[in-house]
């Protein structure tokens, strides 16, 4: 059984016969090496964020976090995430429905296309929208004439974030829906339920944990996206700076405490994401056991 944060229950695996286990010294050395790696690359970075954030006391921390530019950055990031996540959720459900419930030519190509943004550098992803909508871009002059601002404004921040996070929900749902099969849905339709009823009453409850997890991943990535947004935002303080960009600007201005204070908000959000992920995996393991 898998518990939150995985791993077998204590003592479960140590019951292995001696011939199938390593000598205690080897076990100790391997564990120590693994833990030193975790310490250097995961624990110390986490530790330094909070140490530096609170390094000049609580009042400095709260001033950095509640300062108007920080609040505007938070508002922009929240707005972007609220637009991006529902759209990618719809896309993920549609793509997973088409791919897992039906047979058609070119399915593998479609799956590859959905995954494509993962193999494209975020900077290049952002650049694509500059090429389309920037001043020298394909639609740039046309947009300029009509006074429509896309680049260095909210629309391009949303587009770049959409691009980068578009595979996340689909990727979570496709394998889940494939492994669950369609018998229940087929039964519902055969018994006279409409397509919409079947979808809402049968399919959605079946995949709710996958949906939840996909939404968590997509939100986390939207909030934290840096490279793609960095290209299209123009770094106009208070207008087009998302929270990660605000952190970057503070850091580059040597306002380290403020940078880490704002970064600590993102870090806490990341930790919450990890806890929720553990929870979803725990639920999934309970369900598997119930079968």
């Amino acid at each position, binding site marked *: 059984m898998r518990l939150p944060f*995985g791993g077998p229950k204590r003592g479960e695996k140590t019951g292995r016969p001696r011939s199938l286990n390593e000598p205690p010294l080897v076990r100790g050395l391997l564990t120590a090496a693994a*833990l030193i790696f975790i310490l250097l690359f995961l624990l110390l970075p986490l530790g*330094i964020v909070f140490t530096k954030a609170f390094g000049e006391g609580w009042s400095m921390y709260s001033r950095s976090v509640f300062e108007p530019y920080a609040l505007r950055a938070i508002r922009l990031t929240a707005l972007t995430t609220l637009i991006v996540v529902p759209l990618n959720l719809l896309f993920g459900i549609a793509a997973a429905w088409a791919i897992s419930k039906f047979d058609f030519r070119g399915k593998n190509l479609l799956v590859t296309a959905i995954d494509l943004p993962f193999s494209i550098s975020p900077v290049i992803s952002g650049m694509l929208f500059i090429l389309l909508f920037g001043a020298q871009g394909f639609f740039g002059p046309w947009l300029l004439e009509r006074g429509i601002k896309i680049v260095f404004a909210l629309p391009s921040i949303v587009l770049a974030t959409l691009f980068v996070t578009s595979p996340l929900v689909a990727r979570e749902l496709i394998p889940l829906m494939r492994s669950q099969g369609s018998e229940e849905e087929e039964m519902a339709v055969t018994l006279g339920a409409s397509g919409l009823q079947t979808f809402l009453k049968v399919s959605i409850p079946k995949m709710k944990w996958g949906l939840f997890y996909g939404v968590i991943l997509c939100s986390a990535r939207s909030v934290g996206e840096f490279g793609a947004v960095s290209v299209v935002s123009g770094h106009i303080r208070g207008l087009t700076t998302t929270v990660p960009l605000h952190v970057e600007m503070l850091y580059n201005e040597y306002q380290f405490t403020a940078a880490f204070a704002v970064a600590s908000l993102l870090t806490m959000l990341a930790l919450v994401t990890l806890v929720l992920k553990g929870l979803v995996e725990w639920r999934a393991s309970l369900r598997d056991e119930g079968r």
Partner: protein
Amino acid sequence: MSGRRGVLPGFGLAMGFTLWYLGLLLLIPLGALVLKAATVDPEKFAATITSGRTLAAFRLSFGAALVAACINGVFGLLLAWVLERYDFPFKRLVDGLVDLPFALPTAVAGIALTTLYAGNGWVGRHLAVLGVQVAYTPLGVVAALTFVGLPFVVRTVQPVLRDLPAAIEEASASLGAGRLQTFFRLIFPELLPAAATGFTLAFARGLGEYGSVIFISGNMPMKTEITPLLIMIKLEEYDYAGATAIALVFLAISFAILLAINALSLRSAHPVRRG
């Protein structure tokens, strides 16, 4: 293809929306990149790609991503092994923490690693005594990419290791093989395809990474400037043609390498020895 649509409705709607979305969000922007590249003067294209600065950026990006993926290959296997096979305090917490690089915004990782590995940082201070400088050197790029790619190998190898039947190890032991022999002759080949997948994912992630690298690398042209940063600089100088040329070639090389690794690991996934 059977062409069987089954009794379920919604194929047209789901497929239509999927293709429309991908078309707008992916195909048109990628088409713009290719179209833009086609309009770039070939001489300018060649000059940009073969300039010393671009070549240095390519070398650093591919080299650092490769080294980081190798480090993650070794430590990913080690972590997966230790997490699946051994017991130690706070093991579940450590297991959950492995996903941190997926969840932590890259800019936060970047400033945290820089502060940690700078000459006066918690870790950098001790490395400086040994004469090793990490921040603002290519080593810093490797450190950032190691962080970013850390979860991949662990997460691909763990399920395989968990499902490995104990019977084959028992058989090996009862036939007189030592633990080391059993590991290298029996267990390691079973883990290899999964590890290769994780390695590829980590490598791909490292190639394009930007946020965690730019703080720790110091961004010196010819020395510690990664390709995505060079593209960024070209864009900031409004040199769209140069940026397009570099981006297109970088993407083409990346895809070629990833396809090659995938082909190799597909072959190793169907080893002859099973016969």
